[in-house]
């Protein structure tokens, strides 16, 4: 008696039983359940299409992570500055405020403004103007970093170091961590600036500029927050 296998179209024979070797429906190179070659605009298969979205999501995730780092340290700062020993006066000696920090604050706010201007020009595809304003943003970023360095030099010149008193400890800690994160933003700014100067425009540049600007504005806001926290709180 001959055996006849009837295979209904569409019904797939599934391996059954624990550990059973399947009928190898993948042997013909087709993947079961794979809806055939991907179709539709922007879908080129295999996932190598460009997703601008993922950079935006990733930058927001980074922002949340950095926020948590500074939330932890700022709450430590707030408690430390308000703390008083039971048997005496507070040992908190506030630092004087270096005037260069005002300048720095102005510089970093200005850099956010120039970045926004550059972004508007990019949207209107005025690439020459974009390059001009983007370079200015990167330079202002560098200027901010130099200004922070000057503030540290001024304190060091007066013998105020990381371990001198609680306020100086937190000042150096918070400003240098901010500077470290800002350095990352500066690398991103330089990257999009250099790409722009090479006239490398397109969806990738748009995504890079968008991601960079989210991060840079966040760095700006973070600095303003730290400046207020370190010198105007209490």
């Amino acid at each position, binding site marked *: 008696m001959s055996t006849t296998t009837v295979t209904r179209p*569409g*019904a797939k024979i*599934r*391996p*059954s039983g*624990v*550990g*059973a*070797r*399947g009928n190898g*429906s*993948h042997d013909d*190179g087709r*993947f*079961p*359940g*794979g*809806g*055939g*070659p*991907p179709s539709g605009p922007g*879908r080129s*298969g*295999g*996932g*190598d299409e*460009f*997703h601008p*979205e*993922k950079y935006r*999501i*990733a930058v927001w*995730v*980074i922002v*949340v*992570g*950095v926020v*948590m*780092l500074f*939330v*932890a*340290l700022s709450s*430590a700062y707030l*408690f*430390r500055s308000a*703390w008083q*020993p039971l048997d005496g006066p507070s*040992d908190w000696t506030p630092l004087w405020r270096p005037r260069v920090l005002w300048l720095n604050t102005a510089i970093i706010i200005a850099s956010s403004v120039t970045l926004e201007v550059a972004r508007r020009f990019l949207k209107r595809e005025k690439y020459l103007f974009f390059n001009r304003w983007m370079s200015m943003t990167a330079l202002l970023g560098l200027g901010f970093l130099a200004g922070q360095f000057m503030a540290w030099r001024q304190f060091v010149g007066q013998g105020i170091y*990381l*371990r001198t008193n*609680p306020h100086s*400890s937190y000042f150096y*800690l918070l400003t240098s*961590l901010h500077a470290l994160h800002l350095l990352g933003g500066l690398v991103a700014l330089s990257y999009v600036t250099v790409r722009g100067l090479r006239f490398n425009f397109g969806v*990738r540049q748009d995504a890079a500029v968008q991601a960079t600007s989210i991060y840079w504005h966040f760095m700006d806001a973070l600095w303003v927050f730290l400046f207020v926290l370190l010198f105007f709180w209490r």
Partner: protein
Amino acid sequence: MAETADAIHHHEAPRGFIRKYIFSLDHKVIGIQYWLLALVAALVGMTLSVLMRLQLAYPNQEFGFLKWIFPNAAANGTISPELYLSLMTMHGTIMVFFVLTTAPQGGFGNYILPIQIGAADMAFPRLNMLSFWTTFLAFVVMVLAFFAETGVIGPIGGWTGYPPLSALGEIAGPGEGTAVMLWIISIALFCIGSLLGALNFITTMLNMRTRGMTLTRLPLTCWAWFTTAVLALLSFPVLLSAGILLLLEHLAGTSFFIPANSIVNGKLLTDRSGGSPILWQHLFWFFGHPEVYIAIVPGMGLTSQVLSTFARKPIFGYRVMIYAIFAIGLLGFFVWGHHMFISGMAPMTATVFSLVTLVIGVPSAIKTFNWLGTMWGARIRFTAAMLFAIGFVSLFVSGGITGLFLGQTSLDLHLHDTYFVAGHFHMIMGVAAIFGMFAGTYYWLPKMFGRMMNETLGKIHFWCTFIGVNCIFIPFHIMGIMGAPRRYSLHWNPVTGEGLQYLQTMGPLTKFASYAAFFTAAAQIIFFANLIYSMFKGPKASENPWEATTLEWVIPSPPPHDNFGGHEPTVYRGPYEYSVPGAPKDYCMQTDPEPSESPESEH
């Protein structure tokens, strides 16, 4: 720049050994790397725990082999209190970070999540590679701490690393100089590695889902990994900040944690002023409590998946399971104070922390009852993976109930820092999470290596481990109620009469727990033998050996380089459609088109 490289990566597998297996960009290879790292770490951590149990069962007895293992830390063949403390610290640190945090998320999550959502890889393959190698570097630094100082094999401050002991440097005692520095650096590196991983997981899950894979069609494992990634993103920066402060105490002589005028080993410290050790506790436990969930939440997702698969029933209350997992994660951020009830806290604050802690019982109970509801009336297939998943539920209950005891401020005053606490967290975050990993290994090894594990050995391994861990940790609770303090290398030495006299009746119980520990550790040989044999010589696995429904089971075992061979699967259904009425077989793959498309199945 990265995109062009990714594009090449998606089309064909790299050829060279180093590109393919060492510095691989493939999420599957990285997942296996994480998983192997965790296996090695688990072996190290388990060995350390066996040595601790040896000391507790035979206090201060001389063992010749100790001279051979620790030629300088145990030169006379006995375990000194300092050596015991360093064994405990390294056991805790390695287990919590490099096993419980690494295997379920970095290992299984990396391997399975992109496949389950129908993606060809993670969103950022390079970042994925970087996060594994950062974690690996962290492990190397942690291992270096073993050899940093004489007399001990690492820091002696416990995995919580409480200052001022951990912040003072060498004057604080053995292990608190170079060893603790390496420990902090390792933890900081681990934080960075985990944050990079979390970034990748969140982006991947939000952005890389395939056609038809709506949020409510995601397997619960994906939801669990996503929640874990969010928890990691919010908590690891806080630990990182604490680690930076602690490192500055050592490197820059600051006083974030060291109070003024501390007397350390008979010496008055004049160069530090006004820090607070409590600050560390707040920062650490703000991380530490979510960390517990980072360890257990992937196990919850996996348990849901495995229970549903082998009960051949849809998971009971799919949406509620998602809400419960988020509720647990969210509440986990508001309970850190319950670790610090005896550190000094306003009674009102303690009450609030206590209440929020008890509220976590609600979503946990929802999950437990949903798991029971899933199994209710089912024709269960008792595979090894299923047994471990049921074991997870059992341990989750017995470990979770004791959490309610400890969450009570008044009870905690007595139970704090006793073996009751050790029993509680070993049950729930230690063993339950590890049962999740075992279930994952039995369940996904056929997919990862294309070979089946031996079921009989798996079942023997389950029963030995399940009975063993209960025999270890149930006595812990009794010892804790008797008042036995944690972290002591000796409770009562019947030979010399040293120790705490009120604990002299505890000897038999301690010995019993130790024997159970030796037995359980020995039982793991069955697992490792089964694992290694099956990886190379086990029977070949089909593409869907468990008749499960999620996307990883529609592709060959092991999956090809870019998972779906350049295709994009289309998803038509929820993840747990078992025993669907009217369906031709007892399960419907997520990729099976809706029955309503064919006219005859409409009723």
